[in-house]
């Protein structure tokens, strides 16, 4: 960047005529004039010459001093110009920095703008998704309600008497409709499951009882695939855990349901309860749900807990899954202050592990 005022200062520093030459010329001119005066006056005595000598000497000394001063001045000017140049370079640098800063600021502003745009897009996507879930579940729940009510009316004898056998079958139909409704409710709840910790009701839960109840629920689907269901306790007298029984029931249901779904006919599914207090600083119990199923492909292990994600081999085997079970399970376990993980071998089986803190009284309300 040019600085006009500074440039003019540099010009001032440069004197156009060398003073040594200037004074030399003046001295010589004076000498010539004196010589002429002396000649014309015809004065020839020594007094006049004696006057001329100091004048000439004076003029010469003056010339010399002025020349010397000028030299010093020139040096000073040179230094000054140099300083000014340095300053100008610095000013240039500052200006450059300023520009860079401005550019960065603009970039920051642009990024901020982009981010807020992306955020808005995400929010509207989230809203669209919520709306989609809400409408879809409504459309699914309506025909399911019709099925459920019909079964219920016939079961209740409102449509005339039925035999015990008929009642048995109708009850299974009713239960299936109920199960489907539960799944849809889950799908609807998944939005809230993430957000609402306050909905959790932590009490002392007996995992043995809870697991037995869950396995009992799955007696029919297991029988139809000739899968053996087992509950193994590694030690007797397991303590209770601090948990919301409905939520943990949901986790176990999801894990056992998956295990049965993806284990071939004649296989085995086990819930293993053990005391994890021995090898952990935190007082907790460990639950392992093991199957002899299709396993989780190594490349998909990172994604298995993601919402709506389903293993590629699982999709091939069972096209009608939601990909929400493990997502919900992890969310619930984490809200209990526990961990969930798995080990798996494709084609051989999977073990899902989770831990829950041991119940110690009311202080476990918010783990």
């Amino acid at each position, binding site marked *: 960047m040019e600085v006009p005022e500074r440039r003019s200062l540099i010009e001032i520093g440069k004197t156009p005529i060398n003073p040594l030459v200037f004074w030399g010329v003046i001295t010589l001119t004076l000498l010539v004039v004196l010589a002429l005066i002396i000649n014309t006056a015809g004065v020839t005595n020594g007094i006049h010459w004696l006057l001329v000598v100091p004048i000439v000497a004076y003029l010469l000394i003056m010339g010399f001093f002025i020349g010397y001063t000028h030299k010093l001045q020139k040096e000073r000017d040179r230094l000054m110009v140099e300083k000014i140049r340095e300053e100008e370079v610095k000013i240039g640098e500052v200006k450059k920095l300023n520009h860079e800063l401005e550019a960065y600021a603009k970039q920051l502003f642009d990024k901020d703008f982009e981010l807020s745009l992306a955020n808005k897009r995400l929010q509207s996507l989230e809203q669209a998704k919520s709306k989609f879930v809400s409408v879809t579940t409504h459309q699914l729940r309506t025909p399911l309600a*019709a099925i*459920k009510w019909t079964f219920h*009316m016939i079961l209740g004898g409102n449509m005339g008497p039925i035999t015990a056998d008929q009642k048995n079958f109708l009850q299974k139909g009713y239960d299936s409709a109920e199960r489907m409704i539960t799944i849809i*409710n889950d799908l609807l709840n998944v939005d809230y499951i993430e957000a609402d910790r306050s909905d959790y009701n932590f009490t002392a839960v007996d995992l043995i009882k809870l697991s037995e109840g869950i396995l009992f629920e799955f007696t029919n689907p297991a029988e139809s695939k000739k899968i053996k269901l087992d509950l193994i306790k590694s030690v007797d007298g397991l303590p209770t855990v601090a948990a919301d029984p409905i939520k943990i029931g949901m986790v176990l249901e999801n894990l056992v349901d998956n295990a049965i779904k993806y284990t071939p006919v004649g296989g085995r599914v086990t819930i293993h309860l053990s005391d994890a207090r021995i090898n952990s600083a935190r007082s907790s119990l460990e639950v392992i749900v093991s199957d002899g199923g299709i396993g989780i492909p190594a490349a998909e292990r990172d994604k298995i807990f993601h919402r709506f994600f389903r293993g590629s081999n699982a999709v091939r085997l069972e096209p009608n899954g939601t990909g929400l079970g493990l997502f919900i399970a992890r969310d619930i376990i984490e809200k209990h202050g526990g961990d969930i993980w798995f080990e798996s071998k494709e084609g051989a089986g999977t073990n899902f592990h989770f831990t829950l803190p041991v119940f110690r009284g009311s202080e476990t309300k918010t783990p």
Partner: protein
Amino acid sequence: MDKTNETEKQKHVLIVEDDEFLRSLTAKRLEKEGYRIDVAVDGENAISLLETIKPDIVLLDLLLPGKDGFEVLKNIRASATVKTVPVVIFSNLGQKEDIQKANALGVEDFLIKANFTLDDVVSKINKLVGK
């Protein structure tokens, strides 16, 4: 007791439901309990029926063609004749916002169809109209 007398004593339920099968099932079940039933298939239908029949209770679906259940509910609460009629929402919508919205407008109960049976609905209505 003659027939006219009996009809007069019968409590009157207006069912607002667009799904034909659900509507007929509900009507059938409530008739069996001795209620007098009128049905509306959409919001407009419900609003015009309300003023003429003045029911004792309204069973109201939310997702309806044209004017939805919330509109009908607003209409009821702004009306001179049926302002205080008890309304039970009977819908498959059931997000927190829907429930809050309905409660703000004034409803006796909010039932999600799939989560209840018709027996539950009957006992709810019995309780509300003092049968």
